[in-house]
């Protein structure tokens, strides 16, 4: 070993360590594809799986951001450690930025969750005010309750691993973008006109999509809209 280019060695090590900690590359591209699938699925749901399996498909679509986190880790371990692990020196500023982003994601999700719960309460109050729908409560409530458990649980699922498995600000941004389409059903609460339109047009078989539980009570069985008239 003759001359030592100190600056080059420092820069190479620093860059590799940073790359090692962020685990970017193919995983980020995959996250983008997943977000696209989720977005397209919300605009025009395609049933790949039929019958009860449809619920599994819907669950997979909703859990995609959460699935992305471990997938990113697996891809990284298989593809990006050709020269072995190199741990970066902890950067306090970056760490603080990461936690700020995690907090922002939490706040956005919690806001939508609160709105969703308020929607549930107001919808339920609406049911109680109408005598003709009260009698349907006992039969429909378990289904409605199941749907609303999704609404209540999803933000927690999205949040629980995020601060530990998201390694940088770029990843936090990518994660927030991939979560964006999931908030679309909650946005029904913010647009009364859209809510009316959805009440009239949309089927009720997407778990977690029920912004207003009275829809289920009024429209009946989730698959009614698919049956031919009079069947």
């Amino acid at each position, binding site marked *: *070993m003759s001359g030592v280019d100190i600056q080059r060695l420092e820069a190479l*090590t620093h860059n590799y360590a940073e790359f090692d900690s962020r685990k970017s590359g193919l995983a980020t591209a995959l996250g983008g594809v997943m977000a696209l699938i989720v977005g397209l699925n919300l605009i025009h749901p395609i049933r790949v799986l039929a019958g009860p399996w449809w619920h599994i498909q819907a669950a997979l679509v909703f859990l995609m951001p959460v699935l992305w986190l471990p997938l990113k880790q697996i891809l990284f371990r298989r593809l990006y450690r050709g020269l072995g692990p190199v741990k970066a020196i902890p950067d306090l500023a970056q760490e603080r930025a990461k936690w700020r982003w995690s907090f922002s994601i939490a706040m956005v999700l919690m806001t939508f969750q609160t709105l969703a719960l308020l929607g549930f309460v107001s919808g339920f109050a609406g049911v109680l005010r109408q005598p003709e729908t009260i009698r349907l409560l006992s039969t429909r409530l378990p289904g409605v309750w199941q749907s609303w458990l999704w609404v209540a649980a999803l933000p927690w699922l999205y949040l629980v691993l995020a601060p530990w498995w998201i390694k940088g600000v770029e990843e936090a941004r990518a994660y927030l973008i991939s979560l964006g389409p999931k908030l679309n059903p909650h946005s029904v609460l913010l647009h009364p006109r859209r809510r009316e339109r959805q009440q009239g047009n949309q089927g009720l078989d997407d778990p977690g999509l029920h912004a207003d539980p009275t829809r289920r009570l009024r429209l009946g069985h989730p698959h009614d809209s698919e049956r031919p008239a009079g069947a």
Partner: protein
Amino acid sequence: MRKNENFSKAILDLDRMVHEPARLAILTVLASAEEVAFLFLQRITGMSKGNLSTHTQKLEAAGYLDTVKAFQGRIPVTSFRITEDGRLALKAYHKQLRALLPEEGKR
């Protein structure tokens, strides 16, 4: 004449453990990260396994680095960490060099 004597004395005062080019490269890499795998260190410094092992053992004996042995799945991974003494020695070495070569230090 007096100036030359001081220069020679300063050269002799340099920490030999750090001044050797291979060890200087190792310490420089280790100081740029928290923990570095053996394979990465080998590739980036361009040394052979045996050569790298010899130098890391010397640096460990001097208390300038720690060896960390772990398993990644079933594969054993050897990594190194610079110690606080190692960091201080490298810093002192850079300071001495800058004092010896003021023009180089400004670049």
